[in-house]
């Protein structure tokens, strides 16, 4: 595959035939097919979405035939989804449409994506260093409870964030000790972490709040408005006023990429995940790196958990087992994104969008909305099945390392 700069040197005609370009074009057209049917364009006929969607699917097939299977299937799926959504939108009343698709959907998507971003980046750090972290779900739950508790007792969201992150990191430290030093099976250890988190948060929730909702007026995570953007027509409602952790999540993606792929530390982390023996030979402390990464992973995913309870949707209340599979969706996003920050971010956006849309679809029917919630898991299953290109975990992921 040619590099980006080499592709730039090619003549335009050659570039258009490049499978990558057709793939991306297909994905874009697929999205466009759905976009045609909804405001502000609102072509009130099913012809246009279907036509554009079919073109997107054809481009997808072309791309698959050129060997870019993952991208091709993405375009194919985008076309199919575009047709489906376009037809659905056309046959529903205009009033509903305006409710289901507007600028706040963007804001809600980004909101639903935030905990997934933190979870997925947490997973990347841990697994890139060679430790499988099934316990993301549990660590997220810990963040959700202790975040509320800290904000309630400390009377500021800062304390909540700090306490949530600290407890998440502590649980991760326990897990790291079992996974790294004691060389326990990491899947078993992660399962144990998930159980422990449900038990600990549930126990202390009853003990400290007597099973009643957390008192009102717990300070929430603040929103950050961008001056000048808040009053703009579409962008204002979409991204003008997002939660502080949503912005932090975007920064985290870039930071994760830079740290893992552009710094010596990142090289060390990745070498521990790919070939710990070789890393050890050149003097890298595999245990130290792995400990640091797992604890960092716990801190990050717990921050995602704090967002669940302390963010705009959580409203400062904790609910028993509130993470309810979000940690696993984050894990899925990491796998779907092939253990890469950008890919995981894209997957998290997709899953966040599907979750936000699932809530909106309840305007049409509760059934469709519920079924839609399964989409991230189905997509991930398809992804690990290798239909859209193989996902490749770090070579030493999940394998305990014995120092010599």
């Amino acid at each position, binding site marked *: 595959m040619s590099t980006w700069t080499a592709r730039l040197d090619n003549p335009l005609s050659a570039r258009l035939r490049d499978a990558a370009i057709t793939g991306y074009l297909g994905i874009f057209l697929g999205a466009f097919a759905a976009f045609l049917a909804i405001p502000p364009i609102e072509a009130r006929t099913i012809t246009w979405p279907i036509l554009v969607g079919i073109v997107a699917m054809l481009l997808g097939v072309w791309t698959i035939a050129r060997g870019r299977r993952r991208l091709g299937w993405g375009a194919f799926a985008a076309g199919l989804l575009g047709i489906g959504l376009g037809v659905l939108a056309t046959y529903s009343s205009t009033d509903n449409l305006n409710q289901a698709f507007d600028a706040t959907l963007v804001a809600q998507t980004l909101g639903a994506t935030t905990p997934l971003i933190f979870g997925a980046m947490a997973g990347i750090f841990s697994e890139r260093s060679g430790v499988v972290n099934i316990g993301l779900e549990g660590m997220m739950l810990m963040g959700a409870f202790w975040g509320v508790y800290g904000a309630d007792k400390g009377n500021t969201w800062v304390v909540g964030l700090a306490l949530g992150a600290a407890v998440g990191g502590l649980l991760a430290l326990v897990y790291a000790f079992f996974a790294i030093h004691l060389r326990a099976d990491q899947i*078993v250890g992660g399962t144990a972490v998930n159980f422990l988190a449900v038990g600990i948060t549930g*126990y202390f929730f009853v003990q400290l709040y007597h099973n009643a909702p957390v008192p009102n007026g717990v300070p929430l995570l603040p929103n950050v408005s961008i001056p000048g953007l808040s009053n703009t027509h579409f962008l204002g409602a979409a991204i003008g006023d997002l939660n502080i952790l949503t912005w932090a999540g975007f920064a985290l993606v870039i930071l994760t990429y830079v740290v893992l792929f552009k710094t010596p530390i990142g090289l060390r982390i990745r070498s521990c995940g790919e070939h710990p023996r070789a890393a050890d030979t050149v003097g890298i402390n595999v245990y130290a790196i792995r400990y640091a990464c797992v604890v960092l992973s716990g801190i990050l995913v717990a921050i995602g958990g704090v967002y669940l309870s302390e963010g705009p949707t959580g409203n400062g209340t904790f609910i028993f087992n509130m993470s309810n599979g979000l940690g*696993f969706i984050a894990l899925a996003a990491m796998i779907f994104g092939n253990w890469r920050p950008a890919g995981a971010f894209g997957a998290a956006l997709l899953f966040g969008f599907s979750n936000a849309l699932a809530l909106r679809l309840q305007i049409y029917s*509760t059934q469709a909305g519920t079924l839609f*919630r399964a989409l991230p*898991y189905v997509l991930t*299953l398809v992804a690990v099945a*290798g239909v859209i290109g193989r996902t490749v975990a770090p070579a030493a992921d999940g394998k305990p390392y*014995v*120092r010599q």
Partner: protein
Amino acid sequence: MSDPERSSAPEQPAEPGTLAARWNVKQRAGGIAVPIATVLLAFFMGGVVVAATQHSVHKALLAYRDIFNGAGLNWIFHPTTNLLDISAYNLSQTLLQTSTLILTGLAVAFAFRCGMFNIGGQGQYFMGIIVANWIGVSLVGMSSLPHILLALALGTVAGAVWAGIAGVLKATVGAHEVISTIMLNWIAYWFGSWLFGDGGPLQNSTQPTIPISDQVSPGARLPDFWGAQGFQGVHVGVFIALAALVVFWALVNRTTLGYEVRAVGFNPDAAAYGGINVKKNLIRAMAISGAFAGLAGAIDMLGGTTNYQFGQLDIPVSQVGFIGIAVALLGRNTALGTLLGALLFGGLLFGTTHGLNSGAVIQPELAGNLTYIIEGLVILFVGADVLVLWVWNTPRRLFRKRAKPATSTAELPA
């Protein structure tokens, strides 16, 4: 490079064939010391949590006594067959929980024997529940026994198919079964929520506002053999679960299938070299594993443990598929061990929730969460038998000379 401190610890894998290695393997595989130590340690730490939060050691001990009684174990002090007696009733409910956990435990254990971690018992259990409910509700005209058998069989098949998907993915494209079974769990969860939710295809036909299924028709219900009017009785599902234990034991230890499955579990490469079709066995083991979990779901549905109904509201509550992991790990993936593990967790599960009397030292809401903590600790310690062994052997090590230093420091097999 080996430092002297670590080389004396028993966790160092010794060279195969030496006495130390054999002793080690024996301790790891067959020893009952580790499971017992694990349980004691987990209960002790759970007790520490209670004692710390209630500011009283005495209360922690009383809490365990309440849980003991809540599980109906005080029945042995005054045995009676009268189910209206509270301890007899509690014991009967513990038995029901145990039979479910035996099956979900066997599901995890069987996959373990083939070297796979079936973390999807919960999803397979849901599929069993869904299909058993569907058959039990729909074919009303059927006579009783065929109806029951059909619902049980199809529930079992549903679980087998659900797990089989993960097996096929593992065998054909090498997708890790842990990932695919987790995904299948949540797909089953939302699929069930959709089926029983508002306007869903299997939602209650007479009460369209309640997200719950119809009740299984009376002909399709498992008969009770010990029960009182108006109470959840002990149904024949208990015997089915016990039979499943025997089937599991025979399948693993006395058949070619079991031999092949175990061979693949020990070393897939060696098994393949010996002429065993590894892919076939991965799929087979996963499907059989899922069949156990599916059967658990079918029995719970037809036996009335779920009030012959299942709904969106019940789905998040049930954790039996996950507890099966603890059961199997504690039971060392053997039939007898699974039985004992299921008894422990069955008692714990009922004794800390419905069985706990309202005047107990710690309220049921608190105790129910204590169950999760103890389960988590058990799984954590069972997974780290190295630690438990080390603690267990500490006295012996203190009074004995240094053991011969282990020689091999190769990486442990994953």
